[in-house]
């Protein structure tokens, strides 16, 4: 029953307006397991630490625990994480596999609960009143294989209540962006893995998100396809311009794509370093400055991770 149980009992965060700050806050509550849901709102009223008016996501002292199986003890997955993502920026979370960075993304997406701290999402400047739109690109495409490419995009447009008369234009525009014009009526299983992931990106962009969450979106692809996709992503984002929070374990990828990198250590997930990447765009992955920075960061990374072990 586990899959369905959990699926249907999603801890849905209610976004509620914080009128003083023109922002949307999520109410936090604990979920011990799927059978028992206690709602203990623990929103901290703490002001944003580094966020100004231009921040899109602000996370303050976020902590999340899971009950450790059997022992009845709590296992800390995320500890005291604070971070800010400025509007229109590309921010990466880099850490070893299993460090809880995907969990953090799920918390922001509202499909996982947390124990304490706060998550605040600000709608794009000029889009007042509406709930901020969050889109998610997962590790695997997660397409509905029984629907055509076009209907997969219609699915999220309908979910987000985008007026029907805009659908045709949005589908055409976004498929064109990801290089899949003309594939509207095709079924996902006829497409290669890379193309399926492109559909997933087009689907995410179609709702014109304020915030785009990406969880290692290229890690399932072969190196050559992934490289091509990274270039294309840069090009797409130059025009679409959402705020991006990108999770990866690949430092080279993070340095190439990001404006800022948060480096995370494992067990529990903690942020130990924030790096600004001030390298002009368009970038080349083999650029000296990029390679040098990557080397330095790799060194930092291992010194922290190994010290932890």
């Amino acid at each position: 029953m586990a899959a369905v149980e959990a699926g249907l009992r999603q801890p849905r965060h209610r976004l509620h307006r914080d009128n003083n700050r023109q922002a949307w806050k999520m109410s936090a509550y604990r979920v011990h397991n799927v059978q028992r849901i206690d709602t203990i709102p623990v929103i901290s009223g703490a002001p944003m630490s580094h966020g100004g008016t231009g921040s899109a996501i602000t996370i303050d002292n976020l902590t999340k625990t899971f009950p450790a199986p059997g022992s009845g003890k709590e296992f800390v997955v995320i500890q005291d994480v604070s971070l800010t993502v400025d509007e229109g920026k590309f921010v990466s979370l880099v850490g070893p596999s299993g460090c809880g960075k995907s969990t953090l993304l799920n918390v922001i997406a509202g499909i996982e609960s947390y124990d304490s701290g706060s998550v605040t999402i600000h709608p794009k400047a000029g889009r007042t009143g509406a709930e901020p739109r969050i889109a998610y690109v997962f590790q695997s495409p997660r397409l509905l294989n029984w629907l055509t490419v076009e209907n997969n995009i219609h699915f999220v447009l309908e979910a987000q209540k985008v007026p029907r008369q805009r659908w045709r234009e949005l589908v055409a525009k976004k498929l064109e962006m990801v290089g899949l014009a003309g594939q509207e009526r095709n079924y996902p299983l006829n497409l290669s893995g890379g193309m399926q992931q492109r559909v997933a990106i087009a689907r995410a962009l179609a709702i014109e998100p304020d915030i785009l969450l990406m969880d290692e979106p290229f890690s399932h692809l072969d190196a050559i396809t992934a490289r091509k996709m990274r270039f294309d992503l840069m090009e797409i984002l130059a025009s679409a311009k959402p705020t991006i929070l990108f999770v990866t374990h690949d430092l080279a990828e993070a340095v190439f794509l990001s404006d800022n990198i948060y480096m995370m250590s494992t067990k529990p997930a903690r942020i130990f370093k924030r790096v600004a990447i001030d390298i002009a765009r368009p970038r080349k992955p083999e650029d000296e400055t990029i390679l040098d920075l990557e080397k330095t960061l790799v060194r930092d990374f291992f010194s922290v991770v190994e010290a932890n072990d």
Partner: protein
Amino acid sequence: MASKLNTIGLRVGSIVALLLLWWAASKLMNDAEVLPGPLAIASTILKDLHTPGPEGESPYFDIGITLARIFVTFFASMIAGTGIGLAMGLNRLCERSLLALIPLMLTMPTILMVFVAIMWFGYSEAGALVAVMAVVTPLVAVNMYEGTRAMDKSLIDMAVTFKAGRYLLLRNVYIPQLMPYIFSAFRYAFGQTWKIVALAETFGLKFGIGYMFFFWFQQFDITQTLAWIMMFVFLMLVLEHGVFARLESRAFAWRSSSLARGRA
């Protein structure tokens, strides 16, 4: 394409082989009172289709009433079973309370259920309905319940992050994932239904193919008995392979979809 022709060839071939075997056996036995040949049966069927039954009813009335009984009881138990199965999969209270009952219902021997239903409801249509529902509903429920358990949680998560509502989730995420289970429940339930209806007609109901079969059984006429059995089998084969198989291949077009189909 070639392999498709091959499978059709094999199917036809095996049926022809069985008929030949039957024919040879009847020739060897050389006693129409024990094993009439396939040709004798075929001509009896053709003759029966023009001969009124023991109550002066048309043979088509007997066939029609059997089909009507099958369809009514089948759909009633499909609907009940699907509802119960989904409720079990999607609601924890239903799951806990019904999970213990299902094996109890499943272990009840079908033939006994028919007798019990006849004792309760007499020789009436209600008896057939209750017998079928008592046997088929839990089968369908179990299948649908398994279907809900096998659903892909990652797709549900995806839909939830994009804020898909209940209806959208049901229509585009749950139901398509349940389709294979719906179809297998459909086929299995149908097979069970017609067997129970035949049984109920044989033992208790007035009119129907099973009734005719029992009528000729009482006369100890093997040719007629076999003729009515074959009529029944033939009808059910047509329904299963002609109707259900077609529906199924349409529902799963996306699996084997070629580019050409996708663009059509």
